[in-house]
């Protein structure tokens, strides 16, 4: 029997690492991966609470979060490729002008 708070603490640690990655990193793809890490931390929270309250809706919501994350990853990577074609860089600090 594992206390529920252990799962929530693990989820919080993953979310905090995701936020840190979003703030620290300068490569756009790594920032994107930190967003995915945040989403995964939240998924763990959902599943832990679903097991705690015996409500299967938590797991169904995880399903939806995964679908939305997949759609967002596809569109986001397409945008990254389009930005790379024009700006020739993946560093977010150098993409700071509206028009080249």
């Amino acid at each position, binding site marked *: 029997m594992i206390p529920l708070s252990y*799962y929530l603490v693990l989820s919080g640690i993953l979310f905090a690492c995701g936020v840190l990655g979003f703030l620290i*990193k*300068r490569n756009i793809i790594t920032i994107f991966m930190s967003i995915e890490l945040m989403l995964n931390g939240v998924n763990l929270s959902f599943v*832990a609470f679903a097991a705690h309250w015996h409500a299967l809706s938590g797991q169904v919501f995880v399903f939806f979060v995964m*679908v939305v994350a997949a*759609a967002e990853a596809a569109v986001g990577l397409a945008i990254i*490729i*389009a930005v790379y074609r024009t700006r020739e860089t993946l560093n977010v600090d150098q993409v700071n002008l509206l028009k080249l």
Partner: protein
Amino acid sequence: MLTLALFLFFGAVCVAGAVNLLVQSHPINSALSLIVVMASLAAEYLLLGAEFVAAVQVIVYAGAIMVLFLITIMLLNAGKEERTKGSRVATLLGVPGVVIGGVLVAWTLIHRSDMGNVAIGALPGDPKAIARLLFHEFLLPFEVTSVLILIAIMGAVVLASRPEAIARPHPGVPATQEERKLVAVGKGRS
């Protein structure tokens, strides 16, 4: 006892992968650490009895989304990232801030006494039960997500395609006015 040992082991692998994502400078190492995080999260879901969610996590997240990330990193040949002034400031301010916030949240969560324990396999997450929910109570969000995926596919195809592929969809057919004039004079390129 065995459950606690398994939870701690996979939890340690998760946190190690997440920290490794932050520490590595080459994006491909970060991507591989994220894959490790997702696989160990799938093991954690199995400990909570959510077997369908664990299988979908491996198939969709670790098996498709991360492959997409990997292919993009390889195509764009992303190199090691450089430490700029902004990233130094962010590290100096961000790491203590987030760590203090995280410790506060964890302390609050652990010291609440009314949360119970979660047994292994407490809630059977077999596909039949989840499918029943998905097609009865959550039917509208389910159909809306399918439209969302369709929009995402169309958006990704349009955003990532080369501009001249849209301007000249069929090879050999002149697309713009100037090209038609060039073809008529006999100097057009195919």
